[in-house]
């Protein structure tokens, strides 16, 4: 029997793991498969399990119809990252290192803020934006999207920066650096990992956002890719290969994130939940 601490390679477990992963990722495989399927094969019974008559029709449609949406999503994603970092990093520094009186309350408020459903925020923003006349605008959507990431960002920065050794802070102070200089020249450079984690998630959430886009940007000429897909499903029911091709393209940031920054992803998932 298997004993703990055995140094075997456990090929059986690897086999089971491969099967489980294949099952879990089947929908993703199916999305890719369908994105290469010809129109006439989309409703075949039984379906083609592999893209045997692979076509780029779907991707050609993406190139022709979806590029502006992708550009808008990129712009909104980057704007959200910039706004989130600008608000969250100083706050994290303050909560972790300067610890002003009453700061704890703010940490509590941030936890609560994370729990407010998006639909509620969307309705509030809608009323405000309608009055200000900034419905259907990219800056408006950037502000709304950043609300998904800012509380998370502050908590990640605070958790990370509280791990910076006090000696480093003291040394900076002895050298005559004020809080601003300490923050900019000492704390920020050593907090690179936190910056990467927060940026990745802020970008991904803004890129993936559907609810704010649909409520606050539903009628504009600058719409993100999530709405591109949504309109596709609504208007263009028949062309599922194009819909799936758009979905594949919209998944690229998530894929890049997983490949390039796997450890940051796991860190980000656990940051909010378990603090060790």
């Amino acid at each position, binding site marked *: 029997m298997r*004993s*703990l*601490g055995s140094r075997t*390679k*456990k*090929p059986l*477990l*690897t086999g089971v793991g491969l099967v*489980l*992963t294949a099952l879990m*990722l089947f*929908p993703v495989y*199916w*999305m890719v498969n*369908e994105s290469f399927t010809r129109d006439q094969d989309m*409703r075949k019974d*039984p*379906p083609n399990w592999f893209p045997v008559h692979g076509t780029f029709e779907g991707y050609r449609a993406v190139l022709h119809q979806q590029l502006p949406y992708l550009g808008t999503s990129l712009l909104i994603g980057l704007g959200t990252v910039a706004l989130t970092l*600008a*608000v969250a990093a*100083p706050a994290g520094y303050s909560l972790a290192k*300067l610890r*002003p*009186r*009453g*700061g704890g309350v*703010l940490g509590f408020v*941030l936890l*609560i803020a994370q729990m*407010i*459903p998006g*639909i*509620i925020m969307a*309705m*509030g923003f809608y*009323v*405000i934006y309608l*009055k200000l006349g900034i419905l259907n605008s990219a800056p408006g959507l950037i*502000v709304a999207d*950043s*609300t998904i990431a800012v509380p998370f960002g*502050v908590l990640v920065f605070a958790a990370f920066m509280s791990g910076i050794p006090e000696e480093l802070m003291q040394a900076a102070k002895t050298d005559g650096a*004020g*809080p601003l200089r300490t*923050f900019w020249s000492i704390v920020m450079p050593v907090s690179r990992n936190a910056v990467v984690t927060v940026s990745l998630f802020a970008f991904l959430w803004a890129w*993936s956002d*559907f609810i704010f886009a649909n409520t606050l940007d539903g009628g504009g000429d600058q719409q993100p890719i999530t709405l591109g*897909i949504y309109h596709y499903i609504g208007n263009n029911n028949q062309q599922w290969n194009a819909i*799936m091709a758009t979905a594949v393209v*919209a*998944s690229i940031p*998530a*894929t890049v994130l997983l490949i390039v920054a796997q450890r940051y*992803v*796991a860190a980000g*998932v*656990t940051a909010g*939940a*378990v*603090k060790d």
Partner: protein
Amino acid sequence: MSTLTQTPAPRRPSGRWAGWAFLAPVTVYLVAFYAYPMYRNIDLSLRHYTVRSFVDGDAPFTGLANYSKVFSDPTFAPALEHTLIFTFVSLFFQFWIGMGLAVFFSKHFRLSATLRALFLVPWLLPLIVSASTWSWMLNSDSGVVNHALHAFGIAPVDWLTSPTWSLASVIVANIWIGIPFNLVVLYSGLQAVPADVYEAAALDGASAWQRFWKITFPLLRPVSAITLLLGLVYTLKVFDIIWIMTKGGPAGSSTTFATWSYRLGFGNLLPEFGPGAAVGNLLVVMALAFGLIYIRAQRKQQVA
């Protein structure tokens, strides 16, 4: 500000002004982009809005009329029931599948780290991507799920277009999306369980099943509680998946508070912002109630 001067000096006296200076952006941000939209939302729920008064901004104050309208609406009871079923069934499966996978992946076989990373994919995909992929897979005529059932001689099921199955279908998609979160958090919890505890138990002749129930699960209780509570808060507010897959239908059979609130506010030609905001605020109350329990549980864990 006076409280600042009255309090005993903190460790770094120069730090307190600087501290709030660094917190100023986030404070302004929270007031402008959280508190104010929330305030407007509460205000919406307490007034009688028509399209004209919405634009002019002179809607009459009607107190809790919107709330009593919502409570007596025939949609209320089914929406509450669907919200609870959606949340608890999703959580149950996400948690136990995530737990099973976490225990499995903690055995550190060859490729385990890579495969575990691949399990994150569903969580990272934009919800519209997952939801439209599931919609196409569950399509009555051409979906791969019905094709597969056909191979076993089972008649096609109208997954998204029959009131019997629509709620189950969106729950399945939501479980798929939620498994990675549970897996990662529970896995990191398992890593903290010292290996010698297991070795002692193995020497005592405990089976794998006994080891899980007698050792792993009790030790994971705090992490499990936090995973479930956070999952609860997140699942209560799920909107995208349901709206994209079924729009809460057919015949309201997959309507939850989140989709109902949206439909009232944005889904009709004649928007009903007041009742929509009222439903949304009920959802906030539910989320905050569980959220506060979560914060308490987390504090307790940190103290321990």
